[in-house]
């Protein structure tokens, strides 16, 4: 199945996106420009990565509320490593591995200790956030390492390097879901865990691996974000997991049946970013943006969930 065909399988939210673009460009003449499009890409790129990770977790009938915190931690670890004089590749690797490590702990709690994903990851969110504050003494840590900053910046005016990197990560997650055993087991565990187990799949191990994978991917996003902002901010990731969950559900992934796809989540992220950017461009007062945003997302999810449920009931 090609990514394009899968995209076309989820038409509703796609049309919502189109409608948003049309509406914003009618309201403001400054909206439909290449630069603004690149802006949206650069700003949405990291959310796309976190959402891809979240979608894998949700497809396995899990949930990971600690991803925002993992993202922050990875950025902090990388920037601290740079500050300690380590070379850029090593600093990046350290950040990525911090996500792998945290994911392994979360996965252990859920897969081996059989804790509910909600409780386990809510707890991990607090723990990781606490450690991040301790590591940074709750201060933002700036970096001026040009090579590091490069991965989050744009080359010239028109080549958004961060967006390209995130796009590659996103496509890799998509390929993992569709073209590896692990990806198929994710769908198997989410769709019929006992069936998968009775078919001889080591569901405990693969469930653990879901969180390892999500932590690793999320950490990559966190490092790119730190590079783009040129700072590791200990509170930068607060609330990202909720955007990621919203984007996943908007993209048509079901919270309970192993139904859905990473490619749908792309559209979910796009919707959120279009809203955010559009409200800025047309001059919505910043104090009203969160409330407006939340309201629109709730309506969009209600719309998406009702069609998903109707389709599921129809079989």
């Amino acid at each position: 199945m090609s990514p394009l065909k899968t995209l076309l399988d989820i038409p509703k939210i796609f049309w919502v996106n189109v409608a948003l673009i049309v509406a914003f460009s009618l309201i403001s003449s400054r909206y439909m420009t290449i630069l603004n499009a690149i802006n949206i890409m650069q700003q949405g790129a990291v959310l796309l990565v976190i959402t891809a990770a979240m979608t894998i977790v949700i497809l396995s009938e899990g949930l990971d509320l600690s991803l925002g915190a993992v993202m922050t931690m990875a950025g902090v670890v990388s920037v601290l490593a740079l500050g300690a004089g380590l070379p850029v590749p090593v600093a990046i690797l350290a950040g990525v591995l911090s996500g792998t490590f945290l994911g392994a702990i979360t996965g252990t709690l859920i897969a081996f200790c059989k804790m509910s994903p909600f409780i386990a990851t809510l707890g991990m969110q607090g723990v990781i956030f606490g450690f991040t504050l301790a590591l940074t003494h709750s201060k933002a840590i700036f970096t001026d390492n040009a090579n590091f900053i490069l991965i989050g910046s744009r080359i010239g005016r028109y080549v958004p390097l961060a967006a390209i990197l995130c796009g590659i990560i996103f496509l890799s997650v998509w390929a993992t879901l569709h073209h590896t055993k692990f990806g198929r087991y994710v769908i198997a565990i989410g769709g019929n865990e006992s069936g998968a187990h009775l078919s001889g799949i080591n569901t405990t191990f693969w469930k653990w691996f879901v969180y390892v994978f999500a932590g690793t991917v999320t950490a990559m996003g966190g490092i790119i974000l730190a590079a783009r902002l040129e700072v590791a901010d200990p509170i930068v990731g607060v609330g990202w997991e909720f955007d990621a969950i919203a984007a996943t559900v908007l993209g048509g992934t079901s919270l309970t049946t192993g139904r859905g796809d990473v490619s749908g989540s792309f559209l979910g992220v796009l919707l959120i970013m279009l809203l955010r950017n559009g409200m800025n461009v047309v001059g919505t007062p910043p104090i009203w943006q969160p409330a407006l945003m939340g309201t629109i997302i709730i309506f969009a999810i209600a719309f998406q969930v009702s069609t998903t449920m109707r389709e599921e009931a129809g079989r």
Partner: protein
Amino acid sequence: MPRISSSAAAESSPLASSEYVLQVRNVSKAFPGVQALDNVSFDLKPGEVHVLLGENGAGKSTLMKIIAGAYLPDAGEILIDGQPAANLTPRKAQELGVGIIYQEFNLIPFLNVAENIFIDQLPTRQLIRLDHKTAHRKAREILASLNMEVPTHALAVELSTAQQQIVEVAKALTHNSRILIMDEPTASLTDREIEQLFMTIRELKSKGIGIIYISHRLREMKEIGDRVTVLRDGRYVGTHNLSEVTVDSLVTMMVGREIDLLYEHDEVSLGEEVLRVEGLSSKATGLRDVSMNLRRGEIVGLAGLVGSGRTELARAIFNADRHDEGRIIIFGKESKGKTPKDSVRNRIALLPEDRKRQGLALILSVAENVLSASLDKVFPRGWVDQRKQKSLSDEYIKILRIATPSGARITRDLSGGNQQKVVIAKWLATGSEIFIFDEPTRGIDVGAKCEIYGFMNHLKKNNCAVLMISSELPEVIGMSDRIFVMREGTIVAEVSRGEATQEKIISYAMDAAPERPANSGTDQNPARADPGK
């Protein structure tokens, strides 16, 4: 190369010397509150179809799950090809050549047919990249070798039940299986599909694969089976060649229980009709044209196999599920109710099968549970009147002799029988007059059973009406004034108390009634051909 090509017969030739591919010796297995298997033995020869027969709950599926490594036995051993196979896991059992089609749906809904067939051995190339092409080709080969056609790119959810069954067969054969277990494979197939499946089974037989076949359709198993083993209440009853036994004798072996003196029965003069169901049908739950009635002062039994629609009928009467056609008349008036709440107001009580989940809030106190369906009695002013709650609930605790130190005790701490009494008390408190019991005595001890029977009689004598769903034939026969037998979503017989025997009821329930033609090949039972199921 498909793993189950004709080479399977050749590969099994070294085994031809050993008479059995599978031997089960003295296996026992207990679940909390029930001895599912008690010292059961069983064996299987290569190239035979060995039918496993027994009532619901006889332990058939449990035995199969033990052979397939899904459960570990408490005692006894399994020998495959004469070698002891201890500590089986699903994976190990597969590797030893055990393929199983479980009674429950075991496919992955959002994976395609090829992925489902090869779920645990997906082919890869270049390290970890899946080789979809090979998977689809091998899947097509396997399906072709079974003479079956299913599109390998379709998702499992998109398939018909029959197609899903075919995929399960193909999946069970991918490990070069020499033992194939089919747990009620025909329960949801049409006649034509069953014929197809039988062709497949004959083909597999000819390749030397031993097949364990579980079904409730007696005539069907005469057609396909070689030997039959009967289980009853988790115990081994006997093994026979199918050619040497009659359907009647099989039925006797299955039921073979005496109706004991547990059941009290009183003649009560019948009162007015309180419930009448006319032509009830529902696509969603599979009910078809159900008609029955219930009068004051009687206990009516609802017998049938699991899945025959008994619980669905009860839920429809209680407005827990919608129906498409038909009428429900309660106390002489057509019920216009839409929700269970309307039914409670109509003085109907439903005591569900799974009382822990549907009938009780286990973490609440006994008193709270007793009054949970009639809260307006205890909070007339908008908050719970503790004193009233205590006095009311104490009254019911006394009437029903619920063994609890006080009404404040958490319901979870009570025994199964006493929990069941709490459910009854809850409905008594609402002032109900029509009581529907769904498997009221499942999993409770004899003492509590007796009390519940006594209580049903008490209801009957007090001018209430009781509809009792039960899979235990002695219980149905011992308690009921009349019995309706259900099969495949509809009522197939009404049996009076005088006529009721276990053999008769099970014959109706299993479509083996003697007055019907005994030739299954030409049997045109409309129920089987019903595509709506």
